[in-house]
């Protein structure tokens, strides 16, 4: 009935989801919502995990067809651990992103999945890469994806600053996810956040009732 310019016919299949990743001064924050839905009418899971660990300090978030995304991340995880053993050192974030890109590009006819890869390595520190549907890979300081991301482009453009502190970045990511979940009916549940720094990895889960609340009209 109501014609949205962002519906799935225009953008391609998009998992009802909101994912994001942002670089701060000493690390990255990567996060997502936790809702899986069927056709936007039934919530098949309220607490699904969309932030997958592919190596010690490298995580990725999936967007698009969940089935495709899971298959690709499994393959990538294997290839990356093999690569890491051969090199005898932890893999670079760009290597992880490149593995995903190769899989997405070489199988672009069959697959419909995009990824945000975020992590920390010794060579370049904290980084975020986005691999989009056809297999393009670019590095950005902050990136958002999924159906809920359309509603927070303005907020992210206005609020993100380079070299934020860990607390500022966490607040920014939490607010962005909360705003997207408030407007997108296929994003919701809890906010799953992972903070990756040289020191280690920290998982933060913010349940629905503890999310920041904004002025509801």
């Amino acid at each position, binding site marked *: 009935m109501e014609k949205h310019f962002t519906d799935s016919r225009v953008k391609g299949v998009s998992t009802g989801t909101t994912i994001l990743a942002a670089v701060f001064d000493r690390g990255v924050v990567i996060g997502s919502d936790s809702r899986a839905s069927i056709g936007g009418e039934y919530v098949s899971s309220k607490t699904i995990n969309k932030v997958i660990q592919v190596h010690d300090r490298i995580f990725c978030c999936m967007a698009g067809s969940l089935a495709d995304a899971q298959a690709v991340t499994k393959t990538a995880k294997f290839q990356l651990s093999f690569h890491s053993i051969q090199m005898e050192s932890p893999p670079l974030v760009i290597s992880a992103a490149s593995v995903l890109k190769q899989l997405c590009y070489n199988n672009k006819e069959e697959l419909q999945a995009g990824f945000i890869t975020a992590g920390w390595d010794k060579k370049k520190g904290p980084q975020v890469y986005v691999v989009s549907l056809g297999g393009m890979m670019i590095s950005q300081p902050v990136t958002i994806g999924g159906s809920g991301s*359309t*509603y927070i*482009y303005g907020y992210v*453009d206005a609020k993100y600053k380079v070299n934020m502190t860990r607390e500022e970045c966490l607040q920014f990511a939490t607010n962005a996810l909360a705003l997207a979940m408030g407007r997108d009916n296929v994003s919701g549940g809890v906010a799953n956040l992972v903070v990756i720094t040289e020191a280690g990895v920290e998982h933060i889960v913010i349940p629905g009732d503890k999310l920041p609340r904004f002025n509801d009209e």
Partner: protein
Amino acid sequence: MAAASMMPIFSQNVSSNSDLVPEWSRQEVSTGTTIMAVEYDGGVVVGADSRTTTGAYIANRVTDKLTRIHDRIYCCRSGSAADTQAIAEVVSYQLGFHSIELDEPPLVETAAHLFRASCYRYREELMAGILVAGWDRRKGGQVYCVPIGGMLVRQPVSVGGSGSSYIYGFMDSNYKPGLSKDQCLDLTTKALTLAMERDGSSGGVVRLATISEDGVERRVILGDQLPKFSTH
């Protein structure tokens, strides 16, 4: 007149693959757009971008999408340019007539209901999303939203058009009740700028209007004067 009537016949003979008739001229004119209206105590602020497109061609880069319906009632138009212009003309006429009969300025709510009546009755044929905003003596500043389909709802702040999706998050986090007129102008300018940066169908300049008991104050913010956000 003879020359003008020859044109349609000429273009029909030209096949659609010909270079003589460009792709964009065969597409409907659309105000893919970003529009916004905010109430404050004493009036309303309305704003819009200025881009009208036919396909990928920008037919008008300085469009005025803030249309006067009555002295203190304006509407912001989004969707098909032809449909919204036609509806606005019809409603202006109806409202002008009604105001003369009543012998007093019309209510914003009346204007909104007239828009809704047209948009709902002809919902299958039309593609029009309209924000009606203005000031009247009974209820002060009011914003009414009449989206595609013909619903009518009053909201303290409302955004519309293709670019509006990108600024829901910004609007939810930055709007609070009780803002002053200048804060509303600032919020509208920032929101429209953010949307114009992300939406390909929105762009150009930002047109603003403030409507209150004292009248209507219009301003334009040109491209180089728009607020800048961190580039990444």
